[in-house]
């Protein structure tokens, strides 16, 4: 099948999936007790049944479920995710304001976990009984079993309080002045701890998988051929073996992308990182339905886009999937 057609089909499926997510989210929120009218009356300091009824009519909450759903989907198609009465702001602008912070955290953690995980996996696969190999096994067990918020708090205590290398919370220091680079450096300093915390779980997974597949690939016939050609050790490992060992790791990374996004909620809360995670946490407590729906929608979008990218990355690595020509 030509690559262009495969791509189109993938994108079509992604859009269909997104629509399904939208319907499901809306239905779930509709089933939950309490609605916007409650939130508004609460913020007014309470209201009687008549006022509540009026609010419901004003916001279309008295309409049948299907009408509300249709209207919601129609609005989303116009990039209108509703209005947050809690934040007094349109949900779209609220989310777009927070999205970059989350994307920065999620993508940098994923990249860190992948790069370090693969490197550790490869190096330890070359000496399966060496010190480093045992260290990777230990790290994997630790990273996978330690709760992410606990890891975060430990890192905070160690590297912000005891040894004050990194800032405790937030994403930017308002006292920082200067040009683009001063701000970039400031954000980077804030990013280090949350990024490491979020990466720790996935680093464990990827390094284990990379080690296992790499060991298998290093014993394969084509690696023996590569050695018989007299290639350097570097070419044998990084050109011939690694390229083959990457596919399973990329597949897992794609599958884990949703877990990374949900992990971000916890990490953002621990580090007061001003992203979608903290927003989600606050809006759930405030029962801010439009905002919650918007965040769910955007999380789904991020995960679906992540999976699409994974698919394309796999096609780049493995020609048998038909990504080239």
């Amino acid at each position, binding site marked *: 099948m030509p690559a262009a057609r495969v791509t189109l089909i993938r994108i079509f499926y992604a859009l269909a999936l997104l629509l399904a997510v939208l319907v499901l989210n809306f239905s779930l929120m509709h089933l939950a007790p309490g609605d916007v009218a409650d939130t508004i009356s609460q913020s007014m300091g309470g209201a009687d049944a008549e006022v509540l009824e009026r609010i419901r009519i004003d916001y279309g909450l008295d309409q049948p479920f299907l009408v509300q759903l249709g209207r919601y989907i129609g609005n989303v198609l116009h990039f209108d995710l509703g209005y947050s009465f809690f934040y007094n702001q349109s949900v779209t602008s609220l989310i777009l304001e927070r999205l970059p912070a989350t994307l920065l955290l999620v993508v940098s953690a994923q990249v860190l976990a992948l790069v370090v995980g693969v490197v550790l996996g490869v190096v330890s696969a070359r000496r399966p009984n060496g010190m480093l190999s045992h260290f990777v096994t230990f790290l994997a067990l630790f990273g996978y079993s330690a709760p992410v918020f606990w890891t975060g708090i430990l890192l905070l205590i160690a590297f912000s309080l005891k040894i004050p290398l990194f800032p405790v919370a937030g994403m930017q220091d308002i006292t920082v002045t200067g040009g683009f680079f001063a701000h970039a450096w400031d954000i980077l300093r804030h990013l280090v701890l949350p990024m490491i915390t979020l990466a720790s779980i996935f680093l464990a997974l990827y390094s284990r998988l990379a080690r296992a597949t790499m060991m298998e690939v290093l014993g*394969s016939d084509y690696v*023996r051929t590569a050695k018989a050609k007299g290639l350097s050790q570097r070419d044998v490992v990084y050109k011939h073996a690694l390229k083959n060992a990457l596919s399973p790791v990329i597949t897992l990374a794609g599958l884990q992308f949703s877990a990374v996004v949900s992990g971000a909620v916890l990490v953002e809360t621990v580090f007061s990182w001003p992203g979608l995670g903290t927003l989600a946490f606050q809006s759930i407590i405030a029962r801010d339905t439009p905002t919650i729906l918007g965040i769910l929608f955007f999380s789904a979008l991020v995960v679906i886009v992540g999976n699409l990218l994974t698919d394309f990355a796999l096609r780049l690595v493995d020609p048998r999937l038909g990504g080239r020509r």
Partner: protein
Amino acid sequence: MTEPLLKVENLRIELKLRDGVAPVIDDLSFELMPGESLSFVGESGCGKSMTALAIMGLLPEGIGRIASGKLIFDGEDLTTASEARLRQIRGNEISMIFQEPMTSLNPVITVGEQIAEVLRTHQGLSRKAAWDQAAELLDAVRIPNPRSRVSDYPFQMSGGQRQRVMIAIALACKPKILIADEPTTALDVTVQAQIFDLLRDLRAQTGTSIIMITHDMGAVAEMAERMIVMYAGRKAEIGPVDQIIDHARHPYTQGLISCVPHIMSDLTETREELTEVPGIVPSLREFGRDQCLFASRCKYRSGECLQHRPPAKGFGNGQISDCWHAEAL
């Protein structure tokens, strides 16, 4: 007299087992002359492939090792050569093709690149020049449309074509020795014949010596001038192919030959009945014993066969047989 290209002297290869070590190659000596074609024959597990891997310096790490003996290639002992020096020789002066064409090529790299990288590594060719020569090599191994097929991936080729690509890789640097480890076992019969034709023609053009490992006596008769029959890690018999087939001096060789229908005989000739070699190869644990390891399967067995390892007995025609009863056979 010309010097031999490769001289193997008293080679002993040990394999680490769960309980101790086993000599998978036990006191093997032979010589390979420039341009000669030599065949290794024997059942599975008799040490043919181990010999090949030892010459390449590719014995399985941590499991197999050369315990003693010498591998003298062009006056240089490969058993003491550095890893860097071995890398210079591998794929350049000695190269190897393997049994499994389906898995021996890297699935995610184009065949052109897999050929070209050998040329870049050993001959310092530029990317462009190496790529052009890769196409020429594909043409030389008779793959149609070589210009367009260089950018194919292995999965786009058949088993026979992949083995041709392997041959192109092996012959890219015009090696002095080509080791072919059962190059046609995984291919169907018509393709086997084509691969043998190809190897024969390429050998005639380049003058490469070939060490062919096989358990197919028909292939030996077709390809080789001399043959070494291996049994349980030891040499059973060595000599010119036609003479051994005509008059084998080792009961194991006789058994192997009588397994094959009409080697070198006309279809009209009356044929002897096909037989088999009874029993199985001894287990690795019995490999080092001071006795004839074939004795348990041999109809000529006598007392001395079980007491001492048989000495090599040479005959005037260049045949050497490691059997107590060689003269009587």
